[in-house]
């Protein structure tokens, strides 16, 4: 241990994993990135532009993967099993290799809520109902017959978030601002379209978020309707009929739309839970990994040598995730300094 460069297994090569791996490499350690998808970048790689400055997501992913360029990276590789050793961990990879490491960093991220579980919104049943991810993909490749010159577009906030019936009581943090961003982008794309956002309340906590929201109303004329969508139906021509209650004026409303975008929320990654159980790391009631302390040491687990970065402990924005990745790298550095 003393003479050997410590090896750190970084699970997940999303933005948290890439950034942490770069920092660890710069600190003189030997990080190993393990990613089950064929490409690195995680969810951000699927996105088109990022709020609030509408900067391209591809640029961020590119700069992060460039930073982690010399780090040994396994893509398209699952972890078959994980085990505890005397002072380290062993990972058996899907390709048959065994990786012995001195520390493990969970950068396993999140899962996007499966919107078809909220059947009343009609995802997978009606043609004109898509999710936030589908829309980003359309922004990327412009191939989706469902998005065909819409005249009226609706966004439903909190799909699978803050919803006890869906089994997720947590706020996904990023959907409010994502909906506003996508609404603006739709309006830029189709200036004639009427755009509606159905929300419970708007949680615009980050830098420039509130300005962005005001801009959406003032400059783009996007309608914000406070009230949950009660049900979605289909008109004979295939358009979707949305029923909701406008709780600000206390009246039920009904609008017919060409496109309905569901803001699917952030839920825990079941793979992360599985690995955590294998090496005895605690999982919180919400399904996310449990930190040693939710205030002072969010990147540490209660097991020595196991650390977290990013959305594996709960919904996070990109700047928060990157800051956590750096913080995790420093915490790992201190951990090895103490062990010397």
């Amino acid at each position, binding site marked *: 241990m003393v003479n050997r460069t410590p090896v750190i297994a970084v699970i997940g090569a999303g933005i948290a994993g890439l950034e942490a791996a770069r920092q660890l490499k710069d600190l003189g350690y030997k990080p190993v990135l393990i990613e089950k998808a064929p490409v690195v970048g995680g969810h951000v790689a699927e996105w088109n532009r990022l709020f609030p400055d509408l900067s391209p997501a591809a640029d961020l992913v590119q700069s992060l993967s460039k930073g982690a360029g010399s780090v040994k990276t396994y893509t398209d590789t699952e972890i078959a099993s994980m085990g505890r050793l005397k002072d380290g961990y062993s990972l058996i990879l899907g390709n048959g290799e065994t990786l012995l490491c001195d520390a493990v960093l969970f950068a396993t991220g999140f899962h996007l809520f499966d919107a078809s*579980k909220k*059947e*009343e919104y*009609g995802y997978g*049943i*009606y043609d004109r109902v898509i999710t936030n991810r589908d829309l980003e993909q359309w922004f990327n490749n412009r191939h989706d017959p469902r998005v065909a010159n819409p005249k009226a577009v609706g966004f439903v906030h909190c799909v699978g978030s803050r919803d*006890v*019936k*869906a*089994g997720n009581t947590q706020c996904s943090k990023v959907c409010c601002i994502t909906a506003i961003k996508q609404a603006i982008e739709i309006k830029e794309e189709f200036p004639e379209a009427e755009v509606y956002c159905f929300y419970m309340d708007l949680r615009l906590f980050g830098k420039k978020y509130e300005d962005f929201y005001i801009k959406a109303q003032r400059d783009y004329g996007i309608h914000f309707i406070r009230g949950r969508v009660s*049900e*979605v*139906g*289909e008109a004979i021509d295939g358009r979707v009929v949305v*029923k909701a209650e406008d709780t600000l004026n206390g009246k039920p409303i009904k609008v017919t739309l060409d496109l309905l975008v569901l803001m699917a929320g952030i839920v825990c990654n079941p793979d992360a839970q599985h690995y955590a159980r294998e090496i005895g790391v605690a999982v919180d009631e919400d399904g996310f990994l449990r930190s040693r302390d939710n205030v002072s040491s969010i990147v540490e687990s209660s097991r020595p040598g196991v650390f977290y970065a990013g959305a594996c402990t709960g919904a996070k924005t990109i700047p928060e995730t990157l800051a956590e990745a750096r913080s995790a790298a420093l915490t790992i550095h201190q951990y090895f300094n103490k062990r010397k």
Partner: protein
Amino acid sequence: MRERIASHFDPFVIPFLVGMAFVLGYCLIAMIRVIAQLPKEDRKRFLVSLITPKYLWMDVRDIFLNCLIHVKLWKRNRVLGYMHSSIAFGWFMIIVLGHLEVMLFVPERIHLFYYPIFFNYFVAETEQTIQGSLLMFLMDFFLLMILSGIALAVIKRFASRIVGMRRTTRLSLLDRVGLYSLWAIFPLRLLAESFTAHISGGSFLTIPTNWIFRQFLGNDLNALPTWWAYSIALGVFMCVLPFTRYMHIPAEMLLIPMRNAGIRIRHSRKGFALLEVYSCPACGVCIDACPMSVQKANCKDCTVYLNRQLRRGNERRIEEISDKCLLCGKCTAVCQVGVQGPELRIAQRERRKYALSPSFADINVRPMASAVVHGAGGESGGVLYFAGCMTQLTPSIRKATTSLLDKAGVRWQMMDPDGGLCCGRPLMMAGRTEQARELIAKNLEIIRASGCDTLLLSCPICYKVFKEEYPLDDIRVVHHSVFFQELVASGKLQVQKEEGLKLVWHDPCELGRGCGIYDEPRAALAAAGEVVEAAKHHTESICCGGSLGSLTLSFDQRRPMVQNALDNLTAADPAEIVTGCPLCLSTFVRQADRPVRDIAEVLDSRC
């Protein structure tokens, strides 16, 4: 034959006589009270049924089969069936035979209540005569039968798992007094008869025991105290009976004729409801059956405890138990007496006073009525499809149902294309019957305006209330699973069968136990794949856990119930779970590890 006691009396019979007089008096007053509490038309109906030969025959048959032989219990659990029928039928036979003995040998003493019970003390009979030996043999035979039942009861009390019950009721203090005195009666009778067998005669049981005792007891001084003990045990049992669960014995004998006469619960605490509460034998079969019992914290919310709290008048607990229940009806399905747990709870809910009771009487349904008139296009007949609120929230069911109607060439229109009024069942379940009636009146207007001949429902919750509470007379009310089964059977829907595709049918509470529909959906599914059964199915199907019935269960509390219901359904490892209720569907979808679909979706995807 000779009478041993010249005065035909001994003070030891007093405890028995006191107990007998008390219990008969109490039951008589209670019976009059229950009958008096019935609403006038119910009372008349009941009294008329008692002089109608058809009902009378039904009453006698049901009382014999249920109270003495316990046929329902035999079907469910043979050990428990034997235990109960051996005690009940054996005891009944001993009393009958006792009277027979008195009538045969000392007919002049038949007016003495205690003679048939303590016959062997007062009359010495030899087993030499054919009647004597036969009667004595039968007496011993039935005594042995009862003793074997008592032995099982003792085992059951201390190790309920041996007789196939996971949980059994916790007894109250008086229940224990009743139980122990009941256990004591028959061993004491055996001892008393054994001590006197060399004087009064006996048979295969009492003569050998008499011989054994005489080997080490030199005299007959034990005989009288044992007869005293026997009489005291009887007296104690009868004196505590009205205050224990054993009140179910007399109560059930009144419950059966009343139920046969078609009497229903009309008041939360009086009349038939009171009778049902007292008919509960507190056996605890409902505890294992209740879907809430997967969590130990809810075990005390089963029907047996509702009945106990109703007897005690503990209002706080009555309200808690009544509001929590899913109203799935499984406790009634497994109950030997047929206590209607859900109906009793709804009656309790009706007592509540609400600060706000919005009226639905002012809703203007003319636009909806004229829409269906317009939709019918001047023609009468055809199918009116009411999707209901739950199907509106599960659009895949509505889509599949309308698609199947088109494929089968049925002339149909929707009653609520734009959303409709509530069917009224949720309000009924909440005990707000008056408001439900207002909605029923409004919906009736729309249905009548359409001129349809069939009302199609894809939600069993709606189906039950339309079937039971709507006076629709000539309009057929049908659940979509039944309607589509008929279309499949008549060849109007051609379903492609996939061999080896295992489908399990989940019986929704409101459709299965609620309306007795079990076979049609299975027959329809058999056209699409191979139907496998859940571990518990038909009347014993387990509620999905999402029921509207419960007013207070939280989603967290329901989750283990949903999981339990899913585990039950996947016992035969089906590829898909199929149901006919939008509420079951949306409840299962959230937690299932395999596809869950409505029967309409399954059929629509294969034809």
